[in-house]
């Protein structure tokens, strides 16, 4: 029980971290142009996203 009491919160917090990361990336436009990103890697430009 005592191990559970900190292991479960740790696990849940890590999950929340992952969820937060996904929601952040969604809002940041990381999934806006999946086709473009696949092509961009072929060109050697100094490539910075517009929002960043």
């Amino acid at each position: 029980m005592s191990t559970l009491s900190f292991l479960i919160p740790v696990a849940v917090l890590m999950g929340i971290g992952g969820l937060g990361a996904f929601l952040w990336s969604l809002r940041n436009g990381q999934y806006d142009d999946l086709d473009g990103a696949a092509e961009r890697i072929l060109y050697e430009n100094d490539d910075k996203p517009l929002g960043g």
Partner: protein
Amino acid sequence: MDELMLASRDLGDGLRQVALSVPDMRCGVCMVELETTLGRIPEVRSVRANLTTKRLTINWQADNGTPPDFAGLIGTIGYTAVLPTEGHEHLDDEISGLLRALAVAGFCSMNIMILSVSVWSGADPATRQVLHMMSAALALPAVIYSGATFYRSAWRALAHGRVNMDVPISIGVLLSFGLSLYDTFAEGRQTYFEASTSLLFVLLVGRTLDQLMRKRARSAAASLADMMPKGANVIRADGRVEYVSLNEIGPGTRTLIAAGDRIPADGTILSGLSELDRSLLTGESRWETVGPGGQVRAGDLNVGHPLTVEATIAPGDSTLAELHRMLEAVEDGRSGYRMLVDRAARLYAPVVHGLSVFSFLAWFLVTHDIHLSLTIAISVLIIACPCALGLAVPMVQVVAARRLFKHGVVARDGSALERLAEIDTVVFDKTGTLTQYDPMLVTGTWNGPLDFSLAGSLARFSSHPMSKVIADYASRGKAEALPLEDVREIRGNGLEASFRGERYCLGRAAWAANGDGGDRTAAASTIVLTRGGQVLASFLFGERIRAGSVKAVQFLKDRGIAVQMLTGDVPAAAFSVAREVGIDHVKAAALPKDKAIAIDALRGRGRNVMMVGDGINDAIALKSAHVSMAPASGSDISRSAADFILLNGDMDGIRVALTTARRASVLIRQNFALAIVYNVISIPLALSGYASPLIAAVAMSTSSILVVANAVRLEIDADALSLRRAQTDRLAGAVQ
């Protein structure tokens, strides 16, 4: 220019942002080219191309506040840029909303699942209580936030007195969550948190896939509105030229249409001689020559010289707008069609609800234990809840759509695939669908080698498609290049030049032979070379049968599908094409209205008709048919009316689409059968009170996996199909 200014968004500090839609951005090279070209303008701070949405986002800052000519610059490197119309963002928002809901549901259900495993493996009552509490806390966001889509849809359906799949889902999820919450605080043994959240998760996966498919289809049928001008240069009474927005243009307004501009409203040409690209409306790639007094329609693109046009009606009443309204008014050919899922739901929902109520009453009568009866009733609801059913259809449709996309066919939505599988009659349009307007030299006659060489040399001076064909043919036919003098191109008529002191003309028969340039309506299918009105050589042009047309017709006939042709062209031309592709049933000289009437007549006889057409005159027929297809080269209006778009213009797409649709409908039925088998096994278990949450979870996930795996079979089968086809093609090639 002013358009750009209006569309720019102020980012502060004089920095402005504008989004341009570039429909012909297709690859990485296009992206890089656009970005580097625009990046070189000093006013541009940053520029970013998006290949998925085919948009350019430009941040710019100009001291004098006027934006650089972005569209013009993009035009010089061979792309077209237009200002996007609002309305697309709505769909994007919906998808990212679904993704967010999906992420939340996924996170919650996975965590609850892990906690539930420890409960099932035998936690002591105190730990169990804690784990249940945590599960409840985790389930709350999923049930409230992720489930909202389903509750809204269910509520809408109920408010209209209908029942859809979302009704049992919503009731199941909410009831099970409520009961589990009660059990958590009453220290019960079982909760159904993981069942309700994973149900939401799986169903959201299905819904998100469905939305993504629609988005792809919509971007393929590039919106008509995007192509329309947002304003025009108006000539004021005092001679000033001013840029105004569309709603200030009315009858009598004089507009100046520069080369490269679209006509904003139907009108009459006052001055100027030019050529118009009317493909937006008609789908014909052939340019039309127009002069003073000529009629123009909104949406025509001026490709030649500047024109002064007097509008006869306001843009909102123009032919284009009128057509749009007509299309909306035509009762959608499939509005009566009910999706398979909805039909299933109509049967399914009452059965599930009935069973659940029945089990509650039966158990209550036997045991007089409200809690136990309620638990069993809810477990029936949850177990029978269409987890696999929710995936059964979208999963297959998405795999099928992906498959089709690889073969150059875009499906507008899932129901189009279902309808395609049911067709028994196909009606083709001729021009632009079975044939391609791409001038092809049918025959050429000339008096002597000198005349032939003259025609070839003269044709080389023009970039007109027909001249190109003649020049090409001449250079292959060993024609000499002759030194011509004083070459002049008379737009819309032809070319003239001097050779050894004599004047030669090459061009439209009427003009070159009689010097009559007035009559511009006759179809220019014969080009002649003349000297002083005497015909020396003549070239006859015809239309080319589109790649795969013959094969597609043959394929349809082999499948026992009736094939007909419905065209506005003259009977002679229609019959010759029909003979060539193998269609027996032809109706020629049909007006747009006749086309729609013919389709309705066929439907009235109980036929499921597929219409394949490209032009503006097919749009209503496309909409009233059971299912419709349009080649991507067709007019914009036909593309937005059709269910399927053939991207590479190969009629072979019909074969691929039909085979895939039929496979998909078989797989969907198999999936339904799987889901029913699952229910037949699990519902009795639930009714008899043996369905623990563990059994529910296992049964639900296995059935979902089975259904998904079955859908993926479509991809494998289709691969085998394309392989077989490649082999037969090779064989055919070897024979030739």
